[in-house]
């Protein structure tokens, strides 16, 4: 029997691989011990070209959200082009809240007031929008529900034990939770997976959902400022290197054609 034909030459590798594959599957079971039932996120389609949505989102964000939250990633002046407005239009329609036009967007409330009000500094929205998906933000904005056990009287489906008060109560109305038996950090618990209307607000549900979508659109655009530039430049740069790959491959073949591995005459040095 020749060594090359022995089936065992490959056999051990397969054995080792099979054993480890089995082990990896059981490692995946480790997640069970910290599992928390995740509420379904509401699907959302945002259109970054929709200037009306962006403007509406900017209006709500810069007039409601920035009362507590900052948006330090951007300056007022950098929003103009995104919203498709002139400087005068921007100042008139949206305004800079008494700040200089080139200032970054900071919270309107002094930190001492915020401290007395919610005890925790509201996070900056630039990185919140960067960190979370539009679907999460949309679900979060539309899913506050009444929870008397919380200091602010409300909780959130997407963010359990949220510290933020329900600032949309006057627009959306109050909501009650849809609870289900699930897990929280591996232990059985009642988990909110959705909301149902409780009281009426000044907007219909469809109106409010659209407003929330506009806010998410605006926040996403603010958090991802170079998306358009990326998709405009990307194909050119990548295309250039694809082209270069083809060219350099041809050059490579051209040079290496002469290198014949089995013969002596392929290269004569010193000539």
């Amino acid at each position, binding site marked *: 029997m020749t060594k090359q034909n022995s089936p065992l030459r490959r056999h051990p590798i397969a054995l080792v691989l099979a054993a480890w594959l089995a082990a990896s599957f059981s490692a995946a079971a480790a*997640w069970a011990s910290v599992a928390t039932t995740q509420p379904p996120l509401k699907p959302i389609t945002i259109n970054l070209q929709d200037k009306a949505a962006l403007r509406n989102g900017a209006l709500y964000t810069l007039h409601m959200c920035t009362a507590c939250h900052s948006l330090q990633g951007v300056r007022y002046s950098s929003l103009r082009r995104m919203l498709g407005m002139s400087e005068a239009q921007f100042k008139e329609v949206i305004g800079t809240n008494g700040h200089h036009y080139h200032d970054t967007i900071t919270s309107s409330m002094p930190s001492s007031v915020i401290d007395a009000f919610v005890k925790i500094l509201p996070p900056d929205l630039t990185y919140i929008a960067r960190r979370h998906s539009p679907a999460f933000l949309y679900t979060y904005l539309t899913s506050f529900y009444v929870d008397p056990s919380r200091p602010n009287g409300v909780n959130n489906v997407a963010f359990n034990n949220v510290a933020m008060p329900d600032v949309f109560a006057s627009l959306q109305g109050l909501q009650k939770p849809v609870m289900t038996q699930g897990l929280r950090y591996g232990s059985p618990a009642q988990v909110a997976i959705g909301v149902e209307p409780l009281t009426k607000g000044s907007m219909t549900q469809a109106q409010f959902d659209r407003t929330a979508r506009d806010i998410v659109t605006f926040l996403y655009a603010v958090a991802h400022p170079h998306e358009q530039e990326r998709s405009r430049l990307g194909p050119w740069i990548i295309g250039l290197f694809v082209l270069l790959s083809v060219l350099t491959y041809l050059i490579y073949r051209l040079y*290496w054609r002469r*290198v014949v591995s089995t013969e002596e005459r392929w290269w004569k040095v*010193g000539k």
Partner: protein
Amino acid sequence: MNSNIRSWARGVFGWFDDRLPISATWRSQVSRYPAPKNFNLWYIFGSLALLVLVLQLATGLFLAIHYQPNPHLAYWSVLRGIQRDSRWGWLIRDMHVVGASAFFVLVYLHMYRGIMYGSYKKPRELLWLVGIFIYLALAAEAFLGYLLPWGQMSYWGSAVVTNFVTAVPVIGKPIATWLRGSFVVDLPTLNRFFVFHVFLMPILLLALVLVHLIALHHVGSNNPDGVEIHDNVNETSWPRDAVPFHPYYTVKDLFAVSIFFVVFFWFVFYNPSGWGFLLDKLNYTPANILHTPADIHPLWFFLPFYAMLRGVPDKLYGIMTFAGSFALLACLPILDRNPVRSIRYRSTLYKVNILAMAFSFLWLGLIAHGLATEHNMVYGLHVTEVFYMTFFALPFFNRRRTIRTKVIWLLAAEALVGLIDLWMYSIHAHSWGLMLLTDWIPALYALLLFGLAIVFPALTHDAAKLPERLTAGGIFH
């Protein structure tokens, strides 16, 4: 006219060339440097790593110009100052971020190439050792740079790592304070990390890379066949199996660079955070000293070491375990003294062992990617044992062993695994059930490796005949 300019240019160049060995160095190190003609795809990662080093230095320069090493300013100087306020800042920063990860991908592949083809064996031991130091410097550079954006993961990752020193009894805490310049990670820490990242480590890296290249060109390149090309030279003392580095490998490297940039720029333009692997999502949140994240974990390239650290239920031993894996890599030339270099001509079980080395390393990364559950810790421990065993088993393959020696190796390996388990049981590190469920991993590996060596001795036999000349040439051979 034209010839006048040409002779004038030649005169100017000649003036310099007479005083500086420009063309002589070019000839000896590039255009007449003999490179084995059978380099395959595994041989592109070294030059690509060099390219990424230059890329990191260039992009890093621009980032350092705009960066503010101050906890109050650092976060926004990156997220706003660099990414938005400076023209092309976002592109430069994303290139630096993707470049850091690309560097590690390339270096890991480069190192594994060295392991596969025995590039650490005589006379290249020092070349390998310098390479290990480059890897350590690179790891330090990446760790130091990770603090600079001052995000949550930056901050807490640095807090965890600077706390490593406190594992040393008595003097540990004062040393940690001295290293940080503060009791916690703070302004002094950020300042010194910045200086080390942009000044000390790059110089060290460049110096080490230079030494690495000098050592390489002194001893000559290894190749996939492990044949010493300088043993067979023609009448002009040119190795018969070599091609000049330029143009043959410069055109090949140019092709590799183009392909590399396609992938690189795809990440830069379309996936700069690399599914959260290149840039952790949590790092979008600014550092908060009052809010420790539930799960602090390093970036992907340190994950296997993190699994080792987590797996050992003792801080000092854990640190020794992961530091020990660097030491094992450095000791490769001592551990593997088999005269056969290339994996092509090594025994089947040696191939299995090398495969297991890579596989256990990847598996460790996967484990550390999961949360710090007891399950993951136990798996981390046992896969670490496998990773270590792949190194400890290397001397076994140095020569053909008698059946008695093989049995001793098997028993010794199983005893070692058993002793570690006994220690775990004795300190009640984990539940019995979990331990029993996972004990088999290193035990089975030792049984497979040495057991098969006993039952099928042919599996430990290296190729009976080594080639005297290279067997094939070109990139796709």
